[in-house]
Structures are given as C-alpha cells and as structure tokens.
C-alpha cells in the first residue's frame, strides 16, 4: 500500500525549502504520468514519503520570447504552448509537438517540465528543444545550474536532476535570420498516441544554402539525440547539393549505430529514413527552392 504525505507549495521559495528540509520527496506537476503510476500502485512510490504539488507556483509558469533569447517555465502546459501566438509565429515546431501530445484533457494539465523530467524515451518535448540547443535551469536552495538538454537524460526515466533540485525553466537562443522548421511524428493513431518516432528539423538558411541545421530524433534512441552525421552532411551545403534521400539513409544508419539491431529496427530504419527525407524536402520547398 502506497502511503505519503501530500504537501502543496505556493512559491518557488517554498518548493526549495521543502526540498532542502525533507527527504524522499516526489514532485507532482500536471500529474498525467504520475497519477497513472500512483493509481497502479507503482513500487517506486514505496520510496516516497512526501508528494509535493507545485501546480500553484506562478514563478514556474509562462513563455517569454525575446529577440535573442527565449524561456519557457517548467509548469507551462502543452495547451498553453499550442495556443500561444508567439510560439505559433516564432517557434511553430514547439507548438506542433505540443499539439501531438495526448488529448485536449491531457494537454490542459500536462506540463513541458513534467514531460522532460519524466524523461520517457518517447517524450515529445525533447526533440524541438534539443534542436534549439536548449538548456535547463535546475535550481536548489543554494542557487541554479544550467544543463544542456541533450545531457539531461542518462537513461529512459532517469535524469541528472538531483533530489534537492527542481526544474525551473527551459532557456534557449532564438533562431536568427531566415529559418525553417518541421516537426513530424509517427504514432499508431492520431490522438492519445505514443510516438513510435518523432523528428524535429530546424535550419538557418542563407543564400540558398544551409548555414546551421539540427535534425533531432524522438523515440528512435533510448535518450533523444541530435543526428550529428546528418547535421554534418547538411551543414554548409547549398540546396542544389542536398540529396534528401541520402540524408534519410545517413540518419537511419546513425540510429542503428546507437541502438544496434533491435526487434523494431526493420520498421524504424526505413520509417526514420523517410521521415528525415520528408523533413529535408519540406525544408527545401519552404525555402522556395525548386531544384
């Protein structure tokens, strides 16, 4: 039988105080993952003495996008992300990822911070934020440290967040100049769907060539990673030099290089290859290149 004391914090200071003073504290945000585990009396709750509800902490909410830098509070819900006009205009791939998550009811509660900290291998928030080169601000009572998002997950459901820390916000540099993006997801159905594969492509372009590019997978590898070989292949190429199918093959090779041949490889290899090919074709089309 799971037993814990429920605590509610109303400010960040209160959260940090509780995390310092008490041991065996589990933070509760939107609850759309945690409440499922709780209902199923997951053995992980045997090591928890306190459940700390932080949903009322205003300092952890909100979206701020400046000309140079942007930040998203950890408690920002997926519904808030997809309905934000700023996100839609400047970072549409983040809105696309948010809208692909769960259902309306889930998106109304589930938070971007919860998605990251829960760190499921299939979590949809990673690839758009890794493409942005995002860092996480992890705060404890003594201060804050920044961790690059791609270094945050050690293994599915296991992160470098310490027991006395809370994820405060996600910070990133805004893409500059002319840029194009795409977010793609393959699931078994349209709604309430767990990603089989997802992908973000974010490219800064100049003079019909790629200046900077990030192609990042979700659900393809145990922890989400940028496809370095694909990025290397595409960077500094003119549009005319790019073969989208080749980019797809490089990404697929890179995925199998990380995961090894698995039961899902005969499906995921060609699927990822096509997903990357499609994303690159979309990029060229959006950039107005008619090859």
């Amino acid at each position: 039988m799971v037993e814990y004391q429920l605590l509610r914090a109303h400010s960040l200071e209160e959260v940090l105080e509780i995390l310092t003073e008490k041991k065996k504290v589990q933070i509760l945000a939107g609850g759309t993952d945690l409440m499922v585990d709780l209902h199923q009396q997951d053995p992980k709750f045997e090591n928890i003495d306190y459940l700390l509800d932080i949903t009322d902490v205003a300092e952890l909410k909100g979206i701020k996008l400046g000309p140079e830098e942007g930040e998203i509070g950890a408690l920002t819900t997926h519904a808030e992300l997809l309905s934000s006009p700023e996100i839609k205009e400047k970072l549409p791939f983040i809105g696309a990822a948010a809208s692909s998550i769960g259902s309306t009811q889930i998106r109304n509660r589930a938070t971007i911070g919860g998605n990251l900290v829960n760190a499921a291998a299939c979590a949809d928030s990673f690839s758009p934020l890794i493409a942005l080169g995002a860092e996480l601000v992890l705060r404890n009572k003594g201060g804050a440290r920044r961790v690059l998002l791609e270094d945050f997950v050690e293994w599915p459901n296991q992160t470098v967040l310490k027991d006395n820390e809370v994820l405060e916000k996600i910070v990133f540099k805004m893409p500059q100049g002319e840029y194009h993006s795409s977010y793609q997801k393959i699931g078994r159905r349209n709604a309430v769907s767990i990603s089989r594969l997802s992908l973000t492509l974010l490219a800064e372009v100049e003079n019909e060539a790629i200046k900077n590019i990030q192609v990042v997978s979700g659900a393809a590898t145990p922890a989400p990673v940028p496809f370095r070989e694909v990025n290397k292949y595409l960077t500094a190429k003119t549009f005319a030099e790019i073969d989208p199918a080749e980019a797809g093959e490089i990404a697929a090779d890179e995925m199998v290089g990380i995961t090894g041949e698995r039961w899902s490889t005969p499906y995921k290899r060609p699927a990822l290859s096509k997903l990357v090919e499609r994303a690159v074709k979309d990029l060229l089309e959006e950039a107005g290149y008619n090859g």
Partner: protein
Amino acid sequence: MAKLDVEITVNGARHKLEVGSQERLLDTLREQLKMTGTKEGCSVGECGACTVIVDDQAVNSCLVLTAQVDGSEIITVEGLESKSGLHPLQKAFIEKQAIQCGFCTPGMLMSALALLNTNPTPTKEEIKTALEGNLCRCTGYQQIIDAVEMAAEEWGV
C-alpha cells in the same frame, strides 16, 4: 495519513471538504458528493469518461488529486440541466441519437461544453480535436459530432 481541508465549487455550490492525500477529484465527486454522473472508465487518462471542467478547462478527473484543485470551480454533467430544462447540448445529443450505452456521454458533454464555452462556432475539425480524448465504443462518433454542431448552431442564436 492526515486529511487535507479543501474548498471547491461544484456546479455553483461551495463545498468544504476533508480529502485524503490520494483522493482523486473523481473519487470526491462520486464518493463524497454522490455525483455519480461522472464515470470511471480506464482510470489512466485514456478514455475521457471522467472528464469534468476545472476552471474552464476539460480535464480527466482521474488524473487530478482533489487537493490540487483547492479553490477551483468545477462543472460536472449534473451542472448542465437547469430549471428551464435540459441544456442545448443535452437536447442535441438526444435529437441526434448521440447516445447508445451512455457511459461515455457525461465525458463527451463536458468536453463539448468546454469547447463551446471558449469557441461558440467550432469547425468540424475543432470539434474532433476537442473530443479526441473521449472514447465511445458504440456510436462511431458521427452522431456525437453532429450533436455538437447542432448545439453550437442552436445555442449560438
């Protein structure tokens, strides 16, 4: 384990309650307030049968602790009918035969109400998105979508 004091407003009525640390909003509504219109289906946020409106947003009441919504305004299916009769959504569900076994209906009505409260003239796609977290194993959904469209037309007048 210690009980927690919470105050919630359900369908316009204030309730001061003591709730357990693992008590879900769904449990409070059904067990403490005896409002059994809200149904428990899957208990893991997939089926939407337990959908209620919390502070204007549709949520799965199986995934929320009651203590988390202290101070909130909640609307359940019991809040639809008024002295002047059935709500336009209820009338439309009957008119369009959007109900067979009826188990999903309270959740469908709440998702539809949350949509129409914020978007009185939804497109068919917007209706489908609003209802995507609600499973119905009887109707095949078309009648439900028709009913929401009808309610939007009639209610909007």
